[in-house]
């Protein structure tokens, strides 16, 4: 039996900054919703003022920053929703963009010249989200009992089929041309009308939506359902044995993810004013997946921050990085052995962004699968296999969260 000497010895009590952070965490755990509101308020104020001062004001104008924040918010919502499915319940959903599409087209059907209807925006948020959630249940009900890999493929298939259906049924969806001229939301009392060139209203609405969603998700995470999700993720057999209805619980996670995605879809449709099938391809699902992984599976604010950062890197920084390099004056250099001439100022990083995402995802899964902002519980889960694995080939140690069947083997080799 491999010796585990230091694991049972008590760790020394933390001091100083560590202690302060722990106290902060305790306080925020007790008063979760207030913490979120306060944190979002602070963030909003920061997001409002930072674009006015350099360096942000140098890169692009203030209105463009608010526009980018509103768009980033869409991805923040998507990431939080996918986090419920992957991070909390442990189900791999690869067709997430399908629900995004369903929400967007629902809004398009309710608010465009094509459908001759003009329904108010804020109720449509709920309606669109609900419609997407219903589709989540429809997809999930027959497929959630499949094992994880098959579920992944099924959701991937669904994610592929939905744009194809929207594309081919062109009598109902205008096919590849999509539905354009979608009406923007009604004017807000204090802030005025929504428009293409002053995105401030979208920014404010998105902040409110994100805050409310976060509060709801944290509430769920701390509730019995959240704990049921954790149990199912770690060991489904044991969870079922403890009386958790795995089917309903998984279905709830799945449809909640779909609902959030639909919500983001409605917002996005109202902002871009055009929906077309090519906006909802696998690329979108993969981008959101990368954001969840980078941000930290299972950590709600982690994926929110991760999504925000990744989006801004993609849309803002990758495009301006050449200019920055040139300004900084980094010279071109030659790689020694392979004799390649590299001029960083001219490398079109924007073209490579999906390559970078792929590399980032692989590196993260290899080195730090719990993400940049890890959920402590997940980190232990993901690394426990490593702690037991002494690197010899062919030995499979039983561990929580490892390959199924391992639980039956108990812990370790005799």
């Amino acid at each position, binding site marked *: 039996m491999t010796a585990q000497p230091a694991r049972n010895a008590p760790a020394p009590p933390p001091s100083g900054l560590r202690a302060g952070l722990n106290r902060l965490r305790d306080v925020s755990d007790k008063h979760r919703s207030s913490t979120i509101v306060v944190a979002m308020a602070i963030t909003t104020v920061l997001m409002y003022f930072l674009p006015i001062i350099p360096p942000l004001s140098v890169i*692009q*104008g203030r*209105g*463009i920053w608010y*526009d*980018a924040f509103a*768009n980033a918010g869409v991805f923040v919502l998507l990431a939080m929703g996918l986090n419920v499915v992957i991070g909390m319940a442990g189900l791999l959903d690869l067709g997430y963009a399908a629900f995004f599409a369903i929400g967007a087209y629902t809004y398009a059907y309710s608010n*465009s*010249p094509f459908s001759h209807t003009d329904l108010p925006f804020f109720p449509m948020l709920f309606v669109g989200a609900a419609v997407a959630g219903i589709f989540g249940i429809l997809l999930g009900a027959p497929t959630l009992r499949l094992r994880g890999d098959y579920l992944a493929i099924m959701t991937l298939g669904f994610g592929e089929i939905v744009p*194809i259906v929207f*594309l*081919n049924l062109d009598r109902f969806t205008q*096919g*590849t*041309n*999509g539905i*354009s*001229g979608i009406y923007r939301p009604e004017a807000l009392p204090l802030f005025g009308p929504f*428009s*293409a*060139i002053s*995105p401030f209203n979208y920014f404010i609405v998105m902040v409110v939506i994100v805050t409310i969603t976060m509060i709801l998700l944290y509430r769920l995470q701390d509730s019995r359902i959240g704990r049921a999700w954790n149990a199912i993720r770690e060991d489904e057999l044991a969870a079922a044995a403890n009386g958790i209805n795995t089917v309903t619980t998984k279905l709830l996670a799945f449809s909640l993810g779909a609902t959030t995605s639909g919500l983001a879809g409605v917002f996005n449709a109202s902002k*871009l*004013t*055009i929906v*077309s099938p*090519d*906006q909802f391809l696998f*690329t979108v699902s993969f981008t959101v997946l990368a954001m969840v992984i980078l941000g930290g599976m299972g950590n709600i604010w982690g994926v929110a921050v991760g999504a925000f950062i990744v989006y801004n890197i993609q*849309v803002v920084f990758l*495009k301006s990085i050449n*200019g920055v390099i040139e300004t900084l004056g980094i010279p071109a250099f030659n*790689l020694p052995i*392979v004799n*390649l*001439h*590299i*001029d960083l100022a*001219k*490398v*079109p990083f*924007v*073209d*490579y*962004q*999906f*390559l*970078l995402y792929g*590399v980032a995802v*692989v*590196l993260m899964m*290899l*080195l730090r699968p719990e993400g940049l902002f890890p959920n402590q519980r997940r980190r232990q889960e993901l690394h426990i296999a490593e702690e037991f694995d002494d690197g010899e080939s062919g030995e499979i140690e039983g561990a929580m969260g490892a390959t199924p069947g391992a639980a039956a083997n108990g812990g370790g080799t005799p």
Partner: protein
Amino acid sequence: MNFRKLSAIAGMSMLVFAACSTTPPAGSGAAPSAGGSGGALTPSTPAPAADTSKGKVKFAIELPQQGSEKAASDPIINGIKLAVKLAGGGAGGYGIDIPQSAIYDDALNGAHDPQTGANNMSKIVADTDVVAVIGPLNSSVAKAQIPISNEGGVLQCSPANTNPDLTKGDPAKQLRTKPNNYIRVVTTDDVQGPAAAQYIFDVLKKKSVYVIDDTETFGKGVADAFDAEFKKRGGTVVKHDAAPKTTQDYVSIMTAAKALNPEAIYFGGVTATGGARILLAAAQAGLGDVPYVGPDGINDGSGETKDSFLNLAAAAAKNSFSTLAGIGDFPGRAQFAADYKAEYGIDPTGYAGTGFACAQVALDALKRAGATSPADMTALREAVRVAGTDTAAKYTTIVGDITFDANGDTSQKIVSIYSVDPAGANGKGDWKFETQVDYGK
């Protein structure tokens, strides 16, 4: 961190570096050559440096610059810059700048993306120095952009958008909340498609045709227009099929087509969505000898141009034709080619000419706007928009004399037809101008 992981990181980094450095730097066209144009015409001398007393303005360019669309966009950028240079770098008392930061790329992951285009247009509108934007290349991007540029009141001239819904009918009205700001110097697919139908029916004298489109905005639009016109003339469309660009086995589809014995094939789409692949499959299925006709999407360079239709289809393209939604044999063509070659060292291709024309229109609009002495940049932008969309204004551009109608469509409804000259471009094949038809008359 153990060795395994370190080697993984090292491996990835090397991969990324190697990939990064094999690609030539993104830029705007080739460097000018040292030699002369080699043609009978000498390049024009640029006008003397223009009066820039009123300040500097920017022209923005918005085109996809990744992947295979880069080959279509680079000539346009070159054409625009050449027009500004030949005009002396200014108009109406303002100097014109086209810095690299004003050239926007709407491509994502190798192909044009409407959302990225919309984001770019928001930036363009927010940049108060911009008085005109030239672009985009793709109609689907324009649909996302026009609401934004319209609200911002920026003159937008497209050198290549051909979808009719951008200017005609209800769909076009839905895109605009304010007076029109969008003009284009090419004619629309509801002219381009029928032009091909007319050519096949009347000139090639083929009475039955098999139509296949790529399910995308442009391809489907032009194929539908072709379909309707061909039937109206009395021809038969044996089948109108659709194959998305992710289709893999075109041979089965073309075998089914062969069974219907069409006398010609019409493809709606661009090279990247299957133009060459379908022709190759048709040849395999036994339809290699029938005429293969497509829109401007396959007219993207000679057999020597990388990724072009002629390059991919090679010998199978011997009986292929294409249309261009613009004038092919324009009066200043030879001079333009000489100027272009002198500046960039290569021949102009694709929409270089219409890009030049758009720039000329913008320059002229700026000149007339400057004459009204606007008080500030906002007023200048509005003045340029008004001048550019003025239906009474007559422009003498490189593609001929044109005016714009109230919708922003050009008066020049000329479609050019090209055939393939197998001996062109050093034996690799090139497009040869056949004829042009004027639908305006």
